[in-house]
């Protein structure tokens, strides 16, 4: 059956072919989505060629090993994937309003939608957003010049992009699997899902999962080894603490994903019997191993968001974070306990009551440190002077909405109740209720907060507020009604339902989804409009919010090497203390030569070859798989022989740059918080607490 050159690939695998044979709405949506990918690619290529941007793109971005650029590229990648994920969410909601005994899409198509949507949102939106944020911010917060392994960092990004690419290709060539983001066998074994869809998932997840493991190692080692002199662990900013815990969780959780995915791959490609119905296969082990990863994963994405809230609560209240030590303990506790609760995703598999009870109680215990964090943020605002800027608005939205997601989490942690609402819309409501007000609001707050650091200008405040309110309203309408549907028994992943009483809730949800798409539109418009007005929004001195941590002591955007001279730290909130009692914006006693990594194409080569390998195995094109694998090995070996991997920036050059920056800082008037969003705010903050 498989051709030696093209494997099982032929012309009938595109949705266009289906559309010509069956021109229905269902196939139309599929064909339109499939056209968007090549059309989008062509548009981007045309634009880059027209503007002559290929050279800069290659030199300054794709081959760069600078952690700041890599962080931004993670965001771009996540943004592109998010567009697709959000549209899929909106299409699903549209389908479900029409789904009383039917629906505009076919059941199969709906299944592909929730599978790609879930996969994309978890692995190619939430995870890269978080990784990108940590990549950008952590070295700046700990006073480092780069991450510990810059080239490895680039390779991690390449692997994540390779996985994302495979998911995008599946839209055009062949179809994605229909087993949800969890892809439970035996449904996803070759007996029941013989096509290439599940293979796309397996290789996209397998490849990007390795990328995430490596990213975790990189960030953890960076925090362990690259802190500036004097920055003891208990002086690190809370965001760095949450990043450390997240990185450690990535190191220990992603291997379980790699194993469960590899086993599924062996079952599918080499006929192994890990999870099959027959010959002693054991599908329960898939659930077990997958959730050993899957549960920590949800805290991997939420912990840095908690970290963002800690930073902004302190900054915008102009006050120290309340009870730093409790925050550290709570963060670490969440990270460790999250490895003891994975069974709560399959309370209903049939194991004994004592097993269920033990894991259920372990799950509930996480509510304690999480509660402490929530109360700590409130206590941070208490007795502060709280500025109701956009990040704080997200924090307030978080307070009101996230606690309900947490509450329903605690409800789900009770096995007896979970027997009822497991696999229902109640669960769908729970996880969107923690993922959106938790992770996404955190990331959005973080974007608003650090955007001026990365690009040298602030975002417009007005549209950003509108966007935030659309988020709150849209989210509430789109997901809170699902709790009711779940209690009424509606299963998740249902392409249709037969109870007309469900329809009003579906209408509320589709309106909510539309508002959320509107929010996304406002966000995109705001990026564009702020870039257009970047002169008026500029803050080159780099401290537009009267920040408290080291990243605000350097210009915006920061120089390639981050710090002119490595800062010496002897307290938490080092920059605030420096501004209050020390000597901000002063020359360093001594400058040294700085070694920075040279650009390299390793990330592109390894990422590209991995994507080719995944594609080849999906379609049984064995020669290409072997070739791509050989390229990966050869590239790794060849890299070892490269002699010049770093480039030196001379001390005088650094000194001159620093002098120029200090001159600019002293020329720029310091602004108080009244003028925070006025054009006068060029990033030189007048501290709230004077010396």
């Amino acid at each position: 059956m498989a051709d030696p050159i093209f494997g099982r690939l032929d012309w009938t695998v595109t949705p266009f072919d289906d559309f010509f044979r069956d021109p229905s709405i269902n196939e139309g949506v599929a064909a339109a989505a499939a056209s968007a990918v090549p059309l989008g690619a062509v548009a981007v290529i045309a634009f880059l060629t027209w503007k002559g941007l290929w050279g800069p793109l290659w030199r300054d971005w794709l081959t760069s090993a600078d952690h700041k650029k890599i962080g931004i590229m993670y965001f771009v990648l996540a943004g592109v994937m998010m567009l697709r994920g959000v549209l899929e969410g909106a299409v699903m909601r549209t389908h479900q309003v029409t789904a009383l005994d039917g629906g505009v899409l076919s059941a199969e198509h709906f299944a592909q939608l929730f599978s790609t949507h879930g996969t994309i949102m978890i692995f190619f939106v939430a995870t890269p957003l978080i990784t990108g944020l940590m990549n950008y911010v952590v070295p700046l917060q700990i006073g480092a010049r780069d991450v510990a392994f810059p080239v490895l960092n680039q390779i991690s990004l390449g692997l994540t992009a390779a996985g994302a690419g495979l998911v995008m290709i599946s839209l055009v060539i062949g179809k994605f699997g229909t087993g949800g983001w969890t892809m439970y066998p035996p449904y996803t074994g070759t007996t029941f899902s013989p096509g290439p869809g599940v293979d796309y998932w397996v290789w996209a997840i397998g490849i990007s999962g390795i990328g995430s493991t490596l990213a975790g190692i990189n960030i953890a080692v960076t925090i362990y080894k690259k802190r500036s002199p004097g920055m003891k662990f208990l002086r690190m900013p809370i965001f760095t603490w949450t990043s450390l815990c997240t990185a450690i969780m990535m190191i220990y959780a992603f291997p379980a994903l790699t194993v469960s995915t590899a086993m599924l791959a062996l079952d599918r490609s080499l006929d192994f019997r890990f999870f099959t119905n027959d010959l002693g296969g054991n599908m329960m082990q898939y659930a077990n191993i997958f959730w050993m990863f899957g549960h920590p994963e949800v805290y991997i994405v939420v912990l840095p968001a908690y970290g963002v809230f800690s930073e902004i609560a302190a900054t915008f209240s102009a006050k120290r974070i309340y009870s730093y030590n409790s925050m550290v303990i709570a963060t670490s506790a969440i990270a460790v306990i999250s490895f003891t609760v994975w069974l709560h995703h399959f309370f209903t598999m049939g194991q004994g009551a004592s097993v269920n009870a033990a894991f259920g109680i372990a799950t509930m215990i996480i509510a304690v440190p999480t509660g402490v964090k929530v109360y700590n943020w409130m206590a941070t605002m208490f007795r502060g002077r709280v500025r109701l800027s956009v990040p704080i608005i997200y924090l307030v939205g978080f307070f009101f909405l996230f606690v309900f997601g947490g509450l329903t989490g605690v409800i789900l942690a009770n096995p007896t109740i979970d027997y009822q609402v497991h696999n229902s819309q109640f669960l769908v409501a729970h996880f969107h209720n923690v993922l959106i007000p938790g992770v996404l609001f955190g990331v959005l707050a973080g974007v608003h907060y650090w955007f001026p650091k990365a690009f040298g200008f602030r975002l417009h405040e007005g549209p950003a507020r509108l966007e935030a309110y659309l988020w709150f309203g849209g989210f509430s309408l789109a997901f809170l009604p699902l709790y009711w549907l779940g209690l009424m028994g509606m299963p998740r992943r249902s392409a249709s339902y037969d109870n007309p009483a469900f329809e009003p809730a579906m209408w509320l949800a589709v309106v909510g989804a539309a508002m959320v798409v509107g929010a996304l539109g406002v966000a995109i418009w705001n990026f564009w409009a702020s870039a257009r007005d970047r002169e008026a929004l500029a803050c080159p001195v780099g401290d537009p919010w009267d920040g408290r941590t080291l990243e605000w002591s350097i210009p915006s955007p920061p120089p390639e090497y981050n710090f002119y001279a490595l800062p010496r730290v002897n307290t938490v909130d080092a920059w605030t203390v420096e501004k209050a009692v020390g000597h901000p914006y002063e020359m360093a006693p001594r400058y040294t030569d700085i070694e920075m990594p040279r650009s390299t194409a390793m990330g592109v080569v390894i990422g590209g070859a991995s994507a080719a390998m995944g594609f080849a195995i999906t379609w049984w094109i064995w020669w290409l798989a072997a070739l791509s694998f050989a390229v990966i090995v050869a590239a790794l070996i060849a890299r070892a022989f490269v002699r010049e991997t770093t480039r030196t920036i001379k001390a005088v050059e650094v000194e001159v740059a620093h002098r120029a920056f200090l001159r600019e800082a002293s020329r720029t008037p310091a602004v108080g918080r009244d003028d925070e969003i006025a054009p006068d705010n060029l990033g030189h903050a007048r501290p709230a607490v004077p010396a």
Partner: protein
Amino acid sequence: MKDDARSEMRRYAIGAVLSAALTLLAFWAVMSHGMARSTALWIVGAAALAQIVVQMRCFLHVGSSSKREDLHLILFSLVLGTLMVGGTIWIMSSLHDRMY
């Protein structure tokens, strides 16, 4: 300098000899057939643990002179590994018992 080399050499040699002895002990426990299965398993397990400790000390030089962060790393890994392996075995044996 030379002394250093000799004592380090001795350390590797001790490690190798101890490892070999422990391996032989484990093989003997299984191959001598004279022993109850559970006794043999206990011996194999104990010999394995002992050999891991020996190799960690003699070949990898993990010990009191190591950096704190390395010890933390290894201990943390052991804790999480134990949780995952132990949890899996507990869960799966419960399932096994209830799904005849």
